[in-house]
């Protein structure tokens, strides 16, 4: 229908899009951003082309400095007692005042590593699935009216994985801009975990689901359980590092828990120390970065902290069942009383909401992405739980992206290499000014052609 209009006066189509595209996967925790170009004919976008930028404004009580966006990872060296303000809430940019400051510092400012002139740059920007429309409108208005990008494509982050490298070893990658045929994307993010079944790059919206456990839930939970023995309430950053360093997904939860039980804090019972570790906390003087080592029961934490036992002065926290009971929330949210199915159950809710003859396709093409999917054992556990829950007739296949953090970005960068595909998806600033915000949203929703 809309196609026919091309016979009449052509709408202001994107006849000469700039070659350069800024691809921004705007996560709640970090922004993954970098340039792609339609002139990169043969060169595949690489993870190194993608910068990871803290999507926060952080205030240090130590040096009284406020770090905006990229400054945190580039300039901060003492991550103790940092307080965070995050513009992205529940996966969506809610506070544009903060986001604008971070974007300007990242993309516009003289010092910005990814400095560009928005008038000569296309923008590919991700959002979480199932966005409230008012927030989509805010994003569109900010991009076109405040930053004034030449053209813009807003899409859900999971969708871009369709354009990423193939996760399954049996296949070679396709040409840039050609989506994978069939993919069920499990995106384990900072705010939450989303499930998105994709068909040739397009989501089955009615089957998208969200489990409200994400990286931040796990960090906060880790903070809570470590507070049984050390005071870490103000140490978001350090606790997050602890979680990343020692956390894993248990393949056999009950027996692992049994192995590290000592029968109460003062029971002399022997525990299986293969799981228990001593984590040496950073003091940002002698220890710049925390690290784990096998548990040494002969060390007295108190003595060691005071430097009285002849060893180096160290602050140690001994971590046992917390290593796996915290990440376990992804699989068993009821462990904290949350009334949502775990990850396997949520995936099946998504798949079973589709016609039965599509179930096999998605069960066999599950792709895991997102920073919080990097726990050891994640993929194995997910695959084995799904396997045990569906009929033996089904093939179940789960693959983790080679770079779970940057896979969305890689997909966006590959899409932006293909000029024809990019043109299909973007709205130009000219079009936005002519047709308005509602038309723009409908276009991104696939409801209007040009």
């Amino acid at each position, binding site marked *: 229908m809309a196609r026919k209009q091309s016979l009449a006066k052509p709408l202001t189509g994107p006849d000469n899009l700039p070659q350069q595209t800024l691809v921004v996967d705007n996560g709640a925790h970090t922004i993954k951003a970098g340039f792609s170009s339609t002139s990169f004919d043969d060169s595949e976008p690489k993870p190194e082309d993608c910068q990871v930028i803290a999507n926060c404004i952080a205030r240090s009580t130590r040096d009284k400095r406020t770090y905006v966006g990229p400054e945190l990872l580039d300039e901060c060296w003492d991550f103790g007692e940092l307080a965070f303000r995050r513009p992205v809430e529940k996966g969506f940019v809610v506070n*544009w005042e903060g986001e604008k400051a971070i974007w300007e510092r990242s993309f516009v400012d003289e010092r910005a590593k990814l400095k560009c002139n928005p008038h000569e740059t296309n923008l590919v920007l991700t959002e979480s699935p199932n966005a409230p429309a008012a927030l989509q409108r805010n994003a569109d208005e900010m991009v076109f009216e405040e930053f004034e990008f030449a053209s813009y494509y807003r899409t859900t982050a999971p969708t871009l994985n369709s354009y990423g490298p193939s996760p399954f070893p049996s296949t070679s990658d396709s040409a840039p801009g050609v*989506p994978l045929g069939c993919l069920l994307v499990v995106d384990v993010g900072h705010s939450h975990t989303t499930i998105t079944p994709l068909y040739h790059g397009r989501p089955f919206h009615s089957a998208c689901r969200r489990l409200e456990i994400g990286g931040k839930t796990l960090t906060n939970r880790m903070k809570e359980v470590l507070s049984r023995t050390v*005071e870490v309430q103000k140490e978001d950053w350090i606790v997050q590092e602890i979680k990343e360093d020692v956390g894993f997904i248990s393949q056999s939860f009950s027996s692992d828990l049994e192995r590290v039980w000592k029968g109460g804090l003062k029971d002399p019972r022997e525990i299986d120390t293969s799981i228990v570790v001593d984590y040496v906390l950073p003091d940002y003087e002698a220890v710049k970065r925390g690290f784990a080592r096998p548990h040494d029961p002969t060390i007295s934490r108190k003595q060691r902290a005071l430097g009285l036992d002849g060893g180096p002065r160290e602050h140690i926290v001994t971590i046992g069942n917390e290593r796996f009971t915290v990440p376990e929330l992804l699989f068993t949210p009821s462990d904290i009383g949350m009334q949502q199915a775990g990850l396997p159950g949520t995936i099946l809710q998504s798949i079973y909401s589709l016609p039965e003859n599509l179930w096999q396709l998605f069960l066999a093409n599950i792709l895991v992405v997102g920073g919080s999917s990097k726990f050891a054992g994640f993929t194995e556990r997910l695959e084995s739980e799904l396997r045990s829950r569906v009929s033996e007739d089904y093939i179940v296949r789960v693959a983790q992206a080679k770079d779970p953090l940057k896979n969305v970005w890689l997909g966006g960068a590959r899409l932006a290499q293909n000029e024809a595909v990019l043109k299909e998806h973007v709205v130009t600033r000219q079009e936005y000014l002519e047709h308005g915000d509602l038309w723009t949203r409908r276009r991104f*929703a696939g409801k209007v052609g040009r």
Partner: protein
Amino acid sequence: MATGPLRFRTPHIEELPITQSRQAPGFAWVAVAAPPEDPAKNWGTANRKRARANVGGQTETQKEALSARQQREVERKIKELNSDNSKDVQIPIPKKEGGGGGAARAGKTTNTKKILASGKTFAHYLDDEEAEIARTGRRDGEAEVVPVAIQQQRASKTPYARRKAREESSMSASPVPTTGGSAPMRAGDPMEIDAGEDGDADASMPSAAEIETLLNLPPLTYNQARSAPPPSNAPPPRRFCEVCGYFGRAKCMKCGAMTCSVMCKDTHDEQRCLKFYA
């Protein structure tokens, strides 16, 4: 910085005191530890037999009050665990060097001025949208009809059939085109799985038209997309010792918290039990 005193200078970490555990020889952690029943306190039910039968000697009413309080506590805690920002801190955005600040921050257009000055939280946006849907049945002007009758839990054989009628057929006639039709064969392609399996006669693909209809269904709202609770036949939630994290095996009669052993129960009684009343 000079070597400080013996205090743990940096990441505000101090060891919490571990209080001496009260020796309670012969104390059993099982529910036998109920206090002797006091009929005077046994308000709320005349059925003393039933009251006595209750583990911990609580009445139904007391138990309900306790569990309602626990439920609220659980919800509060989940909200806290899922909070995005550091608690109780206001972090102003630093003034830009070179004085770009002022006018630039205020926004270039009426729209962006409004957005930048907005103090709305995600919850506000969500409430607004839910209110609009309740009022108009649509979420975004005329852009989207909100899908009704979401069947989150049940596997529906034809989940789209009922919604088909609601489709905005004219609007969805030309969705964003895909390059899918000419895509080369790859893993992840429907055909590959079919080819790999020679059985399953009934697993034939839906028609292209059916798939197109499905693909054009509008997105669910934020609340509709939330994962549904596990089915009712799922195993009951596990409970953990709040002191050490092992499986909880005894419930505190005062506050409902779980502990795993005499040792942990002592720690609980001495350090943590009364926090609900604080």
